[in-house]
């Protein structure tokens, strides 16, 4: 019987392959739990979790909150827009104030890369990173890989996964690359040259600038959202001439999908810009597992919270 090698979930990078597989095996059982008539188990009934969201989020926050509630944890929510962060309080002070109210775990999203690591070094609690700037979004990568595993019968060896779109700003891309490579898959990133970070090939991924070629290569395509909010003020699109051009070159349509000549698994971390990254026809087709990803998200987050909580010392 094994336990995680880490105390916090700050990213995929510090995890071992065994950690990831342990999370998946645990998530299998939680997936069965959330499909029962009574979807709740009492494991975390003496744990209080604070969800600190310093950046907007709907589905990640909802998914974490559901995961916490289905484990019977007590949940408090905090969002930056309605807090004293606006009054100039530092991050450590904010979190220490919350911890003084006897919180056992913190789930945090923050616009700054490294915020979760910083917090884990400075406050005494268990941190789950729910996205830190353009750095990592580990639970998204875990649920993406879990969804792929479900479709491809558990074996990642020689499976080809393409991550397409805004690789430069995407924490989902970085976490996904770490996760898939650790599991033994082959990874390719695809997008306009301005949105592919320099030296990314040193991580062990291949690069393509043509969607058509990537579709021929891949078994699974993960279409990332174009993050207009990270591309400068006032939605000024600086990395490509126009959304229309992006969508013509890198948007996934039914015709391009058919051109691959084999059934591909289509993923999207959401929220979808319909007609930009994927057309509605593709998003609603049975090749898309977008809603499976959302369902699996709750099970995977339950597994992460369960495994981390079991390391909290009871006093």
């Amino acid at each position, binding site marked *: *019987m*094994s336990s995680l090698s880490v105390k916090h979930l700050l990213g995929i990078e510090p995890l071992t392959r065994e950690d990831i597989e342990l999370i998946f095996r645990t998530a299998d059982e939680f997936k069965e739990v959330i499909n*029962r*008539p009574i979807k709740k188990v009492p494991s975390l009934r*003496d744990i209080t979790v604070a969800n600190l969201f310093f950046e907007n989020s709907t589905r990640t926050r909802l998914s974490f909150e559901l995961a916490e509630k289905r484990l019977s944890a007590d949940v408090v929510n905090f969002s930056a827009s309605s807090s004293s962060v606006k009054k100039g309080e530092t991050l450590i002070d904010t979190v220490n104030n919350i911890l003084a109210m006897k919180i056992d775990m913190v789930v945090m999203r923050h616009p700054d890369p490294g915020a979760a690591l910083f917090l884990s070094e400075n406050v005494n609690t268990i941190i789950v990173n729910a996205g830190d700037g353009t750095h990592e979004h580990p639970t998204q990568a875990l649920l993406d890989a879990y969804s792929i595993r479900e479709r491809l019968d558990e074996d990642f060896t020689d499976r080809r996964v393409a991550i397409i779109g805004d690789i430069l700003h995407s924490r989902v891309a970085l976490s996904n690359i770490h996760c898939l490579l650790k599991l033994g898959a082959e990874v390719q990133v695809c997008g306009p040259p301005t949105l592919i970070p320099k030296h990314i090939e040193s991580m062990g991924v291949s690069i393509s600038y043509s969607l058509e070629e990537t579709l021929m290569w891949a078994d699974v395509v993960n279409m990332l959202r174009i993050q207009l909010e990270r591309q400068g003020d006032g939605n000024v699109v600086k990395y490509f001439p126009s959304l229309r051009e992006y969508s013509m070159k890198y948007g996934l349509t039914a015709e391009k999908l058919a051109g691959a000549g084999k059934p591909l698994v289509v993923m999207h971390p959401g929220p979808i810009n319909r007609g930009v990254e994927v057309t509605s026809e593709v998003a609603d087709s049975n090749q898309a597992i977008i809603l499976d990803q959302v369902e699996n998200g709750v099970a995977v987050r339950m597994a992460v919270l369960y495994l981390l909580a*079991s390391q909290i010392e009871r006093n």
Partner: protein
Amino acid sequence: MRPTTLIDTTQFELIIDRLTHELIENHRNFEDTVLLGLQPRGVYLAHRIEQKLGRLLPDVPLRCGDLDITFFRDDFRRREKPLQPNATAIDFIIEDQNVVLIDDVLYTGRTIRAGLDAMLSFGRPATVELLVLIDRRFSRELPIEPTYVGKSVDSLDHQRVTVNWNEVTGKDDVELHTQRTS
């Protein structure tokens, strides 16, 4: 110290035969009765009984499921390592059914307490009975008693009762291990 054999292979077979007959005596044609083996080790006993029932009552449809209690245990975070869950496989409705919970050894009663909780998240059964192969008497921490008992055993706290299954170790028997206390 070498383990003492509490039940040898012949007795083992006879006891499971007897338990199976006791179940038939009380439940006749198993119309509204379902068997639930507790993961991990109660499952072997449940499926063994299911096989015997199948031979004795060839025309009766039997329902037998596996119930995992990991998430319902009361010793979460009191152990060194996290508890690893097992699969739950229940493909029938337990609402208004007579449920027979099945486990190999009844000791403190805490596993059964967790099993009752886990079972209730699948519905509200009409009645619940408990069948165990070994009842370690006088060691209960909760007010839980079995309905059907393979064999009652008097044992000390530092002793350990191990049920071996043919499926796992290649022989059917029950041993009592005494750990040396120095």
